[in-house]
């Protein structure tokens, strides 16, 4: 999985390209922890190029959400692909996370 990030006006956008699974989950958690530590706690994970996600990947997102919240910010997800949407629904994680249409919209209203 390819991880990259870019600091925008009011948030940091993280792009996770490829497969977010049990192998890459710990890497994502570490990556986000570093971004939060560097001072950006308002984070959008752009899942546009995330073709596949498993429960470990979702678990890592929850871990990242916790880290961002504890730093006083928030973590949001955007541009969710069909397979990922299915996993969100299967685990009822869509009760917790709202999927925004695009990264720009994620923090659009605050």
């Amino acid at each position, binding site marked *: 999985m390819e991880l990259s990030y870019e600091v925008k006006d009011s948030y940091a956008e993280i792009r996770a390209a490829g497969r977010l699974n*049990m192998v890459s989950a710990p890497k994502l958690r570490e990556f986000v922890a570093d971004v939060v530590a560097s001072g950006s706690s308002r984070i959008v994970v752009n899942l546009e190029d995330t073709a596949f996600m498993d429960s*470990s990947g979702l678990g890592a997102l*929850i*871990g990242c*959400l*916790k880290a961002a919240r504890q730093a006083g910010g928030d973590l949001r997800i955007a541009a969710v692909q069909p397979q990922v949407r299915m996993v969100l629904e299967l685990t009822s994680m869509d009760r*917790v996370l*709202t999927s925004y249409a695009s990264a720009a919209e994620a923090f659009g209203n605050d």
Partner: protein
Amino acid sequence: MTRFWTRLVVVLTVVCGVNYVAWRWAASLNWDAWWIAVPLVAAETYSLIDVMLFGMTVWRLKIRKGAPPAAADATVDVFITTYNEPLDLVMTTALAAQRIRHPHSTWILDDGARPELRRLAEEHGLGYVTRSEDWKDMPRHAKAGNLNNALMVTEGEFLLILDADQIPEPDILEKTLGYFNNRRVALVQTPQYFSNVPADDPLGSQAPLFYGPIQQGKDGWNAAFFCGSNAILRREALMQLGLVGYVRETEKSIRRALAASQSAIRKARKSAHSESPLVVQMLNEVEAATQEARRRLDGGDSLSEITYRVRRRVDQAVQTLVQADVSALQADLEEIAAMELAHVGESGVPVVAEDAVQRMSARDWSPLGAMESVQAVLDALSVERTGEAQPVMPLATISVTEDMATAMRMHTMGWQSVYHHEVLAYGLAPEDIATMLTQRLRWAQGTIQVMLRENPLVQSGLKWGQRLMYLATMWTYLSGFAAVVYFAAPIVYLLLGILPVSSLSGDFFIRFIPFMIVNQLLFAVAGRGIPTWRGQQYSLALFPTWIKACTTAARNVWFGRPLGFAVTPKDRQTGGPSWSLIRPQIVVSVLLVFAAVVGIARLAAGLSEPIGTLVNVAWVVYDIAVMSILVRAVLYKGFEPELSHQEGDAVPAEGLIEERKIDGA
């Protein structure tokens, strides 16, 4: 063919059993002695249900022909869980695990965080995991917590879980991984077998009926369950459980907090601080924020959004109000300065520090922080699961036996399980009665906890067969209450001449004796020569343990009282025979013998009937035979391997293991 005979005997047992017990309820109760008659018929009904559930289990007994070949690229983490076991014991298992043939990573999960074990692990190239920082001051959840912690730092597709004493065979993965080719399979359980148990098994350590017909029967109903060790699990299934559990717990906690918010705010309004207009305004804001949250929750907004808005709104309100307060303070300071201009000199007007507003709005300084009930509501309105070390807890933590609870949740989600009936790991059983009793108490407590917290009969994802299979295991742990009645009834008759049955006529024997015979026959046929007597003895003789397990687990689940739980020690306790551990059983035995003597004397004196006395004395003899195992258990001095095998093997009892395997095959 065996299946036909098993099913035939099951049908006969059910017919004879229902025939007997229905007659007992309908036509045989001695209402004059209802206080013993009703408990006895209730105990008999309990036993009938027990044997019917057993019959249902073996009805679908599944004998598997072995797994297909595993995918060569399946990745596996082998977890060896330890807390305080001796280091050489842990390392023996870890090194054997390292020699498992299918490619894998071996990890020691050391809940004792022992530097020496870390060093040994590094020396041998083994992975070593201890709890992360997140677990500080959080509930640790024993072994389930240990595994949940390790799941976050490893990445294998499958997990082989081994207790520190369970030495695996090198082919354990080759023989089991192939079952996972079926993508719905989440669990493969293999037997737990103990290499330090003599042939007569005085402590009843081996469970041949359970790791045999019972698990094979459950397997037939897709209800074989996880027993904590010697099992392979699919990570995806565990993580999915963790996520579903996370969403459920988070939503529950948010709903609870919102329900409690009104009364918390009302209480805060009445408290001492409520004079201040600042506090009144803050409380109004909190109230408005929680009302908005409730509306959004009903409207289907996501939990992260709802909690974020509450926090944001409350924080902003606090900040605005504190800002107003500080501005007023600043104005006052300036006014004072203006009046005393001459005295200010060069330092100018004192200025409230820039970060003061932020600092004073923070939770610990804000006036809101002083109102604990309101603060508790706001803290609970979060998606971080602040009361736990990690938000996602894949292994269930509702019980001290995390294994069964986890398996049941997997089945609820539609996953499948497999029981592979071949010993592939060799463990160590307790070698003294004290440790054995602690272990049995723990298992029973855990099972009852699951029954009370997540009753299988009402779990919506389970099929009826699965529900009843889980109930069957839980049901057996209620036997302590029935045992007390079975001991009391003969004592009551022999001492007082009171019979709970209206008469011991032909009607009784013609119904009772066939039931008894087919009942024993069922165990013989289903067990296929497996020794089941030891198990029967312990299920009655440990009645104080079973009762204690039920009462402590009920108090724990319903009133939040501690279980008084201890880890099972793996090394032998020292000291002389511990008769005090079986005091209730000794008292009951003495009473039984005394009652038999009195009963015979009453018969001689013509005070009671011969048939009643005969039946009850026979009953006493059976009870004493059952309980006699405890004498051997108390006197048992631990396992001594036969001389021919004591040639300093690197792996203890390895030779004996080989011998057992040949014998057992």
